[in-house]
């Protein structure tokens, strides 16, 4: 099933050339903001000369353009950072490069990773790999699409509230959001520091295991990282899995529910037990998320002031005007919404009613999850309430757009590992993913569960 293995035996230069040619053939999807061809070919030549080697030797990959990486500007798909040449690389990128992997380009995203469709990119939306009239999902839309189009065998993304899982579901690829703290965030543009997580897109579970094994582990440059616990594993039949009833309501597209039920049937056929479980606070998760995350966004994005780096407005007379105009010109509307909501929920008079209440509600949600994990090995449900929606369908109504995150934000708020696994398609040919959620540090077990079903498929 692994795709990465096919690359390891080839010439790195050939791998890179093929990936770049394929990226150019598929330019109309607008999945990539830049190719890093020159640097990629230089590194590939070193791999072929035996100067760089490792577990990912000569394997091309793509990073979401909020990872600081050499070879092209790191834009976060914003005008603010349009010309920002990173002076350093993200730890995740450095670790992959140390194992011989080669970054060939930078993928499109919602500006500063704010969004669920990649339509908030300052440089235009990415199109869905299965239907160009549909969204790629987001915010890591470009990374999902380059993986789905087989341009590269894996791509990096960041997931704050579903930004890996939702586009994975929309484009029929695997997407893993690991346990909070698994992978260093050093050198990744910060969004909401209490949920930001680094993960990857692949076409199968084994490749995700390999990429996560390379990236996971403590980084002295990111004090929130956990000691490395990620070790690929196998699961035996007899796993107890909870189907989250609160994620299977009438608000969820019937075809999405049908694909989840198909996957449940496969789990049962493979000897696992699946029972319905309740997660009553889940219905408040989106409200919690849209308080906590904008609060953190408003702090994290305060650094973009037009002074030290990034866009600076022209013709300004005062410092206040420099801040105000640079930020107005450098951010897209969704960035401004989130910053202002953050300012609102943190302002005196509202702090207790919103921010404090949200952090207390978050505790209730975490306790409910923890209680379920006393009895269940994993939870299952849809990733998103619908398959990929039409480009433009939700852009006028932010709440409608936010609702796409309703089933991905709970695991984010609780710091739990969650993966999106391909689970078939709708009658109209749009992919649908299922979400598996595990206890903290059970990332490898979730992948093993998905892997065990892949081998059943192969046997059939």
């Amino acid at each position, binding site marked *: 099933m692994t795709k990465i293995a096919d690359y390891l035996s080839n010439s790195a230069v050939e791998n890179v050339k093929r990936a770049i040619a394929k990226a150019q053939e598929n330019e109309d999807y607008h999945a990539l903001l830049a190719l890093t061809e020159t640097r990629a070919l230089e590194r590939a030549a070193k791999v072929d000369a035996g100067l760089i080697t490792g577990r990912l030797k000569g394997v091309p990959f793509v990073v979401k353009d909020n990872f600081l990486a050499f070879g092209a500007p790191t834009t976060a798909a914003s005008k603010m950072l349009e010309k920002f040449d990173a002076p350093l690389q993200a730890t995740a990128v450095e670790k992959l490069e140390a194992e011989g992997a080669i970054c060939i380009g930078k993928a499109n995203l919602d500006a500063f990773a704010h969004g669920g469709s990649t339509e908030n990119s300052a440089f235009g939306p990415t199109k869905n790999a299965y239907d160009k009239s549909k969204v790629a999902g987001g915010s890591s839309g470009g990374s999902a699409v380059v993986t789905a189009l087989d341009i590269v065998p894996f791509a990096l993304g960041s997931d704050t509230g579903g930004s890996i899982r939702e586009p994975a579901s929309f484009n029929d690829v695997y997407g893993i959001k690991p346990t909070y703290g698994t992978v260093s965030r050093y050198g990744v543009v910060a969004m909401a520091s209490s949920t930001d997580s680094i993960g990857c897109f692949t076409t199968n579970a084994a490749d995700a295991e390999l990429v996560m094994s390379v990236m996971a582990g403590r980084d002295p440059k990111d004090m929130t990282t*956990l000691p490395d616990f990620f070790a690929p594993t196998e699961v035996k039949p007899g796993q107890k899995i909870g189907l989250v009833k609160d994620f299977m309501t009438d608000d969820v597209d019937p075809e999405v529910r049908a694909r989840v039920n198909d996957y449940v049937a496969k789990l049962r056929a493979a000897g696992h037990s699946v029972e319905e479980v309740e997660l009553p606070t889940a219905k408040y998760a989106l409200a919690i998320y849209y308080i906590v995350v904008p609060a953190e966004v408003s702090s994290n994005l305060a650094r973009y002031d037009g002074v030290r780096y990034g866009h600076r407005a022209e013709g300004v007379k005062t410092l206040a005007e420099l801040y105000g105009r640079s930020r107005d010109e450098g951010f897209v509307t969704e960035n401004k919404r989130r910053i202002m909501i953050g300012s609102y929920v943190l302002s005196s008079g509202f702090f207790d009613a919103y921010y404090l209440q949200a952090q*207390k509600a978050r505790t209730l949600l975490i306790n409910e999850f923890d209680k379920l994990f006393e009895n269940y090995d994993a939870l299952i449900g849809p990733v998103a309430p619908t398959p990929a929606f039409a480009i433009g369908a939700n852009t006028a109504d932010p709440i409608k757009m936010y609702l796409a995150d309703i089933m991905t934000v709970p695991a984010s708020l609780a710091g739990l590992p969650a993966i999106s696994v391909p689970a078939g398609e709708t009658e109209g040919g749009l992919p649908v993913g299922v979400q598996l959620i595990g206890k903290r540090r059970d990332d490898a077990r979730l992948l093993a569960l998905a892997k065990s079903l892949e081998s059943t498929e192969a046997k059939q």
Partner: protein
Amino acid sequence: MTQISRDDVQHLAQLSSLQLTDAEADGLRVDLDNIVNYIHQLSELNTNGVEPTYQLTDLENVWRNDDVNDYGLSGEKLVALAPESLENQIKVPKVL
């Protein structure tokens, strides 16, 4: 229900260091009003006696040695990122 006024929007923009155009402020007023109404549903949840969550890793007091480490970044390299600089210092409009 809450109601975000135009003055509120301008106040929030000021707190956020955003100099909005009038058209943007009008659009954002409607959006923020809808979002605040949505998040307001949390008020119905009983959280008496519940501790707030501020972090998820249970890591505490992560120490490091107090060694100087420039992470391979020189001052010159960082100043060079600034939109305007003069004699290795970042240039901004007059403050006072």
